[in-house]
């Protein structure tokens, strides 16, 4: 009898699965609690930044070009900057936040000591950043409405587009942080990858004026697909939007798996 009482508990052979909800929720809970301390600053800049773009480009360029592809220039830029806002609120927080959390604060060490695997960690972080990108990516649209863009029902899908594109960019940022050795190296990625993609996405000027090869190349640019989707959400969907959507889904899946693979190499010796 005594022996039974002393038994230290037979090992429970319950095998925990992959991508468990409770593990993902735990990581999300950490992010949400953290976000409560800096949401004001993030929200402020997410509104002010597109407003500045609209004022600068809308009234600056807008005085030179009145319409682009049949759209008022303010409408063109107001919808196009959604893609920029999504990029800014996903790729950059993911790159810097991930690096800080795994290298400087060692947060990921603490999380992986808990019943959470790298796959769940990366998934949860990407989902969280994607959700934020969905919200903050919509801000330029709201600002543009204030500046005279007509609201339409299709715009209700814009947060979803922001979420989808944001998920891919978040995973891209995590992947970048996992691959690069130093936070200073991020500027290579910013200058050679993100800035060109950002400028040649049909956000500030239409691609129609550019050489043919740029048109082909832009099909590999997730920002281009995001810009197209948002334009069409505001001014009417087309059949080609299924292709844009499929590209963003593929982009998200590929980046997500790569981020998990490279992050696991970083976090597990």
């Amino acid at each position, binding site marked *: 009898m005594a022996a039974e009482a002393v038994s*230290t508990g037979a090992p429970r052979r319950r095998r925990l699965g992959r991508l468990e909800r409770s593990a993902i929720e735990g990581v999300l809970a*950490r992010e949400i609690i*953290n976000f409560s301390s*800096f949401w004001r600053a993030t929200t402020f800049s997410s509104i002010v930044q597109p407003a500045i773009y609209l004022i600068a480009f809308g009234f600056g360029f807008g005085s030179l070009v009145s319409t682009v592809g049949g759209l008022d220039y303010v409408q063109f830029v107001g919808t196009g900057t959604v893609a920029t806002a999504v990029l*800014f609120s996903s790729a950059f927080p993911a790159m810097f*936040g991930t690096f800080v959390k795994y290298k400087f604060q060692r*947060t990921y060490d603490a999380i992986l*000591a*808990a019943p959470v695997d790298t796959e769940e960690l990366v998934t949860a972080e990407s989902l969280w950043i994607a959700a934020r990108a969905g919200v903050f990516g919509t801000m330029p649209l709201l600002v543009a409405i204030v500046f005279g863009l007509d609201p339409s029902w299709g715009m209700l899908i814009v947060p979803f587009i922001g979420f989808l594109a944001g998920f891919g960019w978040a995973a891209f940022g995590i992947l970048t942080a996992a691959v690069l050795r130093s936070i200073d190296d991020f500027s290579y990625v910013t200058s050679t990858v993100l800035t060109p993609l950002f400028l040649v996405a049909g956000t500030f000027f239409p691609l129609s004026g550019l050489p043919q090869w740029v048109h082909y190349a832009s099909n590999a640019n997730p920002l281009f697909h995001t810009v197209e989707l948002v334009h069409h959400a505001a001014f009417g969907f087309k059949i080609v939007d299924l292709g844009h959507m499929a590209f963003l889904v593929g982009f998200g899946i590929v980046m997500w798996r790569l981020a998990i693979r490279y992050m696991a190499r970083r976090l*597990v010796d």
Partner: protein
Amino acid sequence: MVWPILASAGARDAPCRDVSDLAIRLRGVVKRFGPITAVDGLDLDLPAGTCVGLLGPNGAGKSTTMRMLTAQAIADEGSIEVLGLTLPSDSKVARAECGVVPQLDNLDITLTVEQNLRVFARLYRVPRGERSAAIDRAIGIANLGDRRDTKVDQLSGGMRRRLLIARALVHRPRLLLLDEPTVGLDPQVRQELWALIDNLRSEGVSILMSTHYIEEAQRLADTVVIMSHGQKVAEGPPAALVAEHAGSEAVEVYGPPARLAEVEAAAIERGQRTRRTGTSVSILGLNGGEVPDGERRPANLEDVFVLLTGEEVA
């Protein structure tokens, strides 16, 4: 253009014990990092409810051993069982029952004491209805009741360490892994933490602790495992290790370097063991033999450590 940045124990003879009574069981564990073998064929048993201290200098393989127990490092060879579960395949289940206190503070510094504990109550899957009580209990353990809503970056070093330990206990783990729990703390805070750790052991929590503080190992560990270059060089209760390897008494002779060299040579000729300690030579393993004049003192774990590893402790 401005790119926005968001920075956001006691038993040595384990073979005669039932395996299920072991909280940790390592056999022949090897871990290499490129050309370096950090852990080199380690066998380790931690009987449930006891405290085992891994004692060794920096680079002995203690932290790597700790990380392998949470599958944050994967062994190249050998077998690891934690709470009867095989690693790395069942590591996640094992981790749910372990509390980990890392050597380097990884608290969320922008969060309050309570928020840090709340996050870990979630990560360790404390059921919703029990979370608040678990957090209150952990705050009690850390003795941070009046700092509940203080942000971590406003806490003192000792308070942060207590919070780090409390965070590891929020889900009532059966096994606690402490990696250098008191490193860098002042003596008073260290003693406070020793009392806390001793208390946990008396409540039946199994503890594996790595340390390079001799006194810490001597006070807290039922069994001390001395590690050097990734290998176990001795294992046993602190007093038994001292008696076995260093005898009961040591004589410490002070003098100028020439005199020390002389004393050392003479002792080695008599078959005694010696150890340099800065300005003196300690002669160990007296066994009633002839000894020069000097200060007699009880032999200690540090003597054993230096004799066995040939290394001074930091």
